[in-house]
């Protein structure tokens, strides 16, 4: 437990991905089974102790400490687990700390009534960092900046294998992952993949550049063209016994989209589909703003399900029955997919249409002027390519519509993290509007990427020289520097003073030359807001009827 606690603490304070990876690898290397397996389960959030909850921790604290001192402390620290860990009275002599596996076993198996005494006993055996780690486990959510992907990458590093292999096997394994470790360390056979329900690493598209276009122009018939949908990429794996829905990162997200899981079950689907999850009402495809209502909700309410129903725009078939189709060329997979989706005849599972092959200039027009808010460009797929894990160049290209742009004025700057902690690298930008006291700048976007290291150095200097006020780590600067900001979309937001929020804003160019007064106005941005009905009315954007005829 002590080693696990130390790992968590160091992960928390380590800003770099590579640093975190090294910490994880070292820990996996040094820690015996089954402790390290439980540690991984805790990090990826698959541990749940139904009876060990924050209320239990509060009750214990109330017993052992003064309530007034607890209240002042909690108020200051702001985090229950950390407050409790620091407040817990140190025993006169500490008994040896428990192993992580002992903690996990007994948190799971101890009956509810005996849990307080057990937890108190554990807390007496740990130092402040150990107690913090234990209470983080109990109160849920470690929040040390480690993704499931990073954990799998560390595992792959341990065994010197391809992370994609670990990803495939991972979902069929249960903590503490004995078989997986045995295989990675050459002590055992490769564990069964959990086969049909396992997550398959996605095939990803490269951004298309000028040069690549020439190759496509030379043989347009070699390329299949599809819309690039502005939803979320998912993988639907279904067998008669069960259904799983995976996100791009390989997380299981079926619980958030029960209608999709239910559809697969009802139709007795036995296949693995790759597609885009979007809001789907009868014939109409919702915009990303619609979809956002459904994201990050673990258990959507009935009202949510009715107002923002989701469906899948399917574009690939990775397996049918128990047959792995990934080695087949795209054309063959596509034919099988079309046959399958047609036979299902289900409104929630729709084919993403193939567009007519066209010369590059025609394609360019299509991707520049997408016919519907839910389309953000084109995807070009080589007809002969198998389905490959990851972003392998030369097979799939994405050709996105140009980002929206706006010229905005720098208002505030804040220091970054890690390597950037001495640089003012995080920016807030404003647009002009008529306020009650005349023309004013209102904040509309934050961005912290898109500039080069050289530009950052120059910006940092400019900000230091043009600071007009400081609020803690934030500097307000003279409203004099204009940035061209690119963004993917815009939506109404009651949380922002300006009433709007931009999607994925980033710096395209620092306009050292442009006077601030020529920057954009809030009304110009508001004009980009899709009229909420237009995005929803069936067929108005023509997506039900693609502009280019299906091939």
């Amino acid at each position, binding site marked *: 437990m002590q080693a696990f606690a130390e790992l968590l*603490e160091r992960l*928390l*304070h*380590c*800003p770099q991905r590579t640093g975190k990876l090294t910490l994880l690898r070292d820990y996996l290397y040094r820690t015996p089974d089954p402790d390290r397996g439980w540690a991984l389960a805790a990090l990826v959030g698959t541990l749940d102790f139904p009876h060990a909850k924050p209320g239990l921790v509060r009750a214990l604290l109330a017993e052992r*400490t*003064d309530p*007034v*001192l607890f209240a*002042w*402390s909690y108020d*200051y*620290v*702001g*985090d229950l687990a*950390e*407050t409790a860990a*620091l*407040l817990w009275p*140190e025993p006169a002599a500490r008994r040896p700390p428990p192993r992580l596996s002992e903690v996990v076993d007994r948190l799971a198996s101890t009956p509810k009534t005996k849990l307080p005494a057990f937890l108190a006993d554990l807390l007496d055996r740990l130092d*402040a960092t150990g107690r*913090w780690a234990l209470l983080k486990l109990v109160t849920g959510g470690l929040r040390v900046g480690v993704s499931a992907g990073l954990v799998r990458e560390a595992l792959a590093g341990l065994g010197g294998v391809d992370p994609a292999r670990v990803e495939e096997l991972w979902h069929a394994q249960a903590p503490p992952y004995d078989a997986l470790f045995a295989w990675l360390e050459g002590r055992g056979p490769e564990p069964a993949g959990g086969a049909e329900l396992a997550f398959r690493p996605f095939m990803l598209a490269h951004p298309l550049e000028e040069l690549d276009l020439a190759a496509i122009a030379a043989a347009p018939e070699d390329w299949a063209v599809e819309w690039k949908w502005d939803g979320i990429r998912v993988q639907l794996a279904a067998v008669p016994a069960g259904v799983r829905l995976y996100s791009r990162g390989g997380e299981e997200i079926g619980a958030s989209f029960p209608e999709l899981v239910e559809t697969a079950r009802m139709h007795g689907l036995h296949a693995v589909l790759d597609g885009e999850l979007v809001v789907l009402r009868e014939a109409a495809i919702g915009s990303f703003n619609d979809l956002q209502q459904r994201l990050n909700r673990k258990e959507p309410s009935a009202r949510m399900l009715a107002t923002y129903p989701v469906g899948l725009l399917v574009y690939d078939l990775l397996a049918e029955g128990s047959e792995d189709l990934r080695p087949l060329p795209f054309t063959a997979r596509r034919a099988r997919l079309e046959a399958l989706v047609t036979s299902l005849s289900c409104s929630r599972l729709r084919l993403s249409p193939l567009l007519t092959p066209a010369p590059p200039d025609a394609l360019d027009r299509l991707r520049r002027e997408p016919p519907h808010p839910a389309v953000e460009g084109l995807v070009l797929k080589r007809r002969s390519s198998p389905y490959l894990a990851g972003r392998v160049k030369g097979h799939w290209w994405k050709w996105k519509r140009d980002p929206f742009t706006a010229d905005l004025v720098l208002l505030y700057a804040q*220091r970054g*993290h*890690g*390597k950037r*902690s*001495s640089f003012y690298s995080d920016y807030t930008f404003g647009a002009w509007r008529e306020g009650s006291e005349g023309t004013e700048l209102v904040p509309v976007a934050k961005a912290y990427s898109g500039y080069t290291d050289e530009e950052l150095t120059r910006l*940092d200097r400019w900000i230091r020289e043009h600071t007009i006020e400081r609020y803690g780590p934030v500097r307000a600067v003279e409203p004099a520097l204009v940035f061209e900001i690119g963004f993917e979309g815009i939506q109404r937001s009651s949380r922002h003073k300006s009433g709007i929020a931009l999607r994925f804003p980033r710096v395209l160019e620092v306009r050292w030359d442009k006077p601030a007064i020529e920057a954009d106005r809030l009304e110009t941005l508001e004009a980009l807001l899709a009229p909420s009905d237009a995005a929803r009315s069936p067929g108005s954007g023509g997506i039900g009827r693609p502009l280019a005829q299906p091939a």
Partner: protein
Amino acid sequence: MSRFAWLERRAEGLLVRPGGVFLDPVRPVPLAVVSHGHADHARPGHREVIATPETCAILEARYGADAFGRLRPLPTGETIELGEVRLRLEPAGHVLGSAQIVIEHEGTRVVWSGDYKRRPDPTCAPFTPVPCDLFVTEATFGLPVFRHPPVEQELEKLLRARAANPDRAIVVGAYGLGKTQRLIALLRAAGYDRPLYLHGALLPLCALYEEHGVRLGPLLPATAGERGRVRRELAGEIVLAPPSALADRWIRRLPDPLPALASGWMRVKQRAKQRGVELPLVISDHADWDELLLSCGEVGAEEVWITHGREEALVHALGLRGIRARPLALAGYEEETG
């Protein structure tokens, strides 16, 4: 009428009326007693200052000889009379020269503790508990979440981080008066004899400590030499700097700096995280919660006044122990830097 009505709270600070003297005043006054050399307790501009000889030397080094009308050194343990009060200084264990101010008037003894700690510190004399009727304390770490771990444990963390990161400069943010020298002395005591690299702002006070017999070993300027060039040769070395320098342009001259901060605040992980510290070191020159309670009890005072910090919790905890406590709410005293 309170027994202590001869102590008066003024905008300048606490006035000992029968002695005509202010304790650690925050604005210029005719006569001040200064407990130690930190800037929030020792402001320039007083006509006359009474302080330990070490503190006098620190004041002169920091502010120059002209900042005060007259510096009057008073060694610890020696009593002087000022008007109707008797006054002496006793060690506070905070930094070199730090002292508690002991004042007696009409059979009542008051101790103004300034800032203090109870942990061993090789760079200054240890805190001496002085029995008194009124104890005036600070409460920077006046919450039970603040318990400083053994300093050896924190030092071990620092040395391990250095060993594990041979390609990075370990940059420890440490307050320039006291923390820096204590950290250096502790490293030396732990057998670390490599040169330590210092931000230029830290060098003069280190020299002053050396003059007062505190051995600090080899110290070199961290960023001497060609401007704008990264000093690759400092990879794997320990560098000390004022906390503010961790996020300053200065740090760019060090190779892949690993920011550490030596401060009592580092006890709270989220606080360390917010400051972008990769290696928090819980090392403080202030009393932690247990030391505050210990000291307030040990001196046997019937009443405790709290100058600044998190007073509410300490007032409450002392109340539970039968000690009457009240916040003085004196403006102008800062909390530990970092």
